[in-house]
């Protein structure tokens, strides 16, 4: 279960960011922002690993004492960042991958919506509900 989910555009500004409201939102904004550096580093590593077939899933970006941050980048350079609680050790890699897959599918649907202009903040209710199912239930 994620604590914070963010979608960041190609130009590195957030299209959608949502976190569990009980904790300070600013802290999550900051965490997501710093994780962008790590994402950039991983993306630019593509040119060097020539024979490597790059995956879209980037894996664990970096762990802090409270949280772990995972990243995923699409072919259109839109980045998804998921922050999970460190105390929740039962979350396996596969589950994180499936969360990213669901996010990607949902984002593709938003993209194909004719009322959505690429680059605008995401306001789709369908996307919101998919994200809610993945977030920790606020108590």
């Amino acid at each position: 279960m994620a604590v914070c989910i963010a979608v960041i555009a190609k130009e590195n500004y957030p299209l959608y960011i949502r976190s569990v409201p009980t904790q300070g939102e600013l802290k999550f904004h900051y965490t997501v922002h710093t994780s962008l550096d790590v994402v950039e580093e991983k993306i630019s590593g593509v040119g060097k690993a020539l024979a490597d077939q790059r995956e879209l899933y980037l894996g664990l970006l970096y762990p802090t004492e409270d949280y772990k941050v995972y990243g995923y980048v699409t072919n259109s350079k839109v980045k998804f960042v998921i922050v999970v609680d460190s105390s929740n050790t039962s979350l396996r890699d596969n589950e994180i991958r499936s969360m990213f897959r669901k996010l990607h599918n949902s984002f593709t649907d938003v993209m194909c919506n004719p009322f959505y202009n690429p680059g605008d903040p995401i306001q789709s209710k369908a996307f919101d509900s998919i994200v809610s199912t993945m977030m920790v239930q606020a108590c």
Partner: protein
Amino acid sequence: MADNALFEFLHMEIVAHVYKEQATREDIDKERVTCVSTLELMGFRVGQGLIERFTKDCPTFKDDLDIMKFLCKDLWSTIFKKQIDNLRTNHQGTYVLQDNKFALLTQFSSGKQYLEEAPKYLAFSCGLIRGALSNLGLESVVTAEVSLMPSCKFQVVIQKL
């Protein structure tokens, strides 16, 4: 994808509609330019959405040539049920995609008849290519030329910043 005929008919109607709308206004000189731009912009937005959907399961592309090959093979097969017949490049950002039997032109003629009308029907596809490339991170200028129906050439010039 559904039967190709559906999209071909829709496309013909879109072109006819855009031109009819424009004809009701006074200025005839600007008519062709604005119609072509409208069609191209439509294609652009569609291209962006399509790419998002089709590259969902592909690994990251290594370089520009890889992207162009994906466009010629996978994207073209999914939309027009065939691949691009010939891809040429000068390795400096210019690519020429040749399709010998372009799906949207096959119903017109197999020679030189209706040649002047052809560019209208290529505007949407140019926009499609430009939108697809833009969403993959490559700004480009796409033009199309047709000398003998139903074969046509799309010229893509990548804008390097």
